[in-house]
């Protein structure tokens, strides 16, 4: 069976689900951030697959992927800076213990 659009979309969905599980179920804030990067990568695979199979000559999906990468890099930098800053003040990065703003 030849590889088609569906294969890439299912692979993307599997990676996104793994990332979703990690983001919801983990305590360590860095692991949560890693899961979010995993989800962004899964979305990028779907974008490139659509670009390759639906409109092969327009490359719009690949341009979107470049902008997603820019936003992901900014998000990783700011997110890790926040985690390090929280660790300095509270000596923990357990997401269940960082509940200062919890009502």
């Amino acid at each position, binding site marked *: 069976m*030849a*590889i*088609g*659009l*569906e*294969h*890439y*979309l*299912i*692979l993307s*969905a*599997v*990676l*996104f*689900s*793994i*990332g*979703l*599980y990690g983001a*919801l*179920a*983990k*305590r*360590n804030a*860095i*692991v949560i*951030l*890693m899961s979010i*990067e*995993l989800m962004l*990568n899964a979305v*990028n*695979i779907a974008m*490139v*697959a659509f*670009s390759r199979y*639906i409109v*092969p*000559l327009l*490359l*719009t999906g*690949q*341009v979107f*992927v*470049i*902008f997603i*990468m*820019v936003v*992901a*890099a900014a998000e*990783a*930098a*700011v997110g*890790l*800076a926040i*985690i*390090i*800053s929280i*660790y300095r003040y509270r000596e923990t*990065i357990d997401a269940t213990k960082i509940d200062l703003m919890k009502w």
Partner: protein
Amino acid sequence: MGLEIAFWALAVVGIIAALAVVLLGDVFRAALSLVLCFLTVAGIYITLSADFLAAVQVLIYVGAISVLIILAIMLTREVQRGSPANRLQIPAFIVALLFLGGVAFAVLNTPWQVSEVTPLEPTTPALAGLLFGEGGFILPVEIAPLLLLAAILGAIVLVREK
């Protein structure tokens, strides 16, 4: 034939590496398997004939973001405590499974209008034309550096010693 073998090998390795990220107890090993997962995603881009994106993926994710994550792990000695799951583990698993089922159902039941045209290769000149040319994406290209500048300044302000 070669494309099929490459796709299946990359997909299996990528999914195992992604599972290792969320299941391994050692945070540092989880970060290393995240790097492996990023590399397989770069390979997937090559099978999709997106050569420029594969290079960018290796440069930004494998090169920069993984170093950033490993540095943060080193700075926050949480390695000994590992990465335990919180009490939402089972609901999170169910939500992820439901999401996967829903997306798989939608993907397999949609009549995609797949184009038979062979894709562009190399893609770099075409991408440059789209990003910087007339009627392209020049406004987002101008806004992206502003976002990066704000992120850099924010990161510096957040981690600076008071």
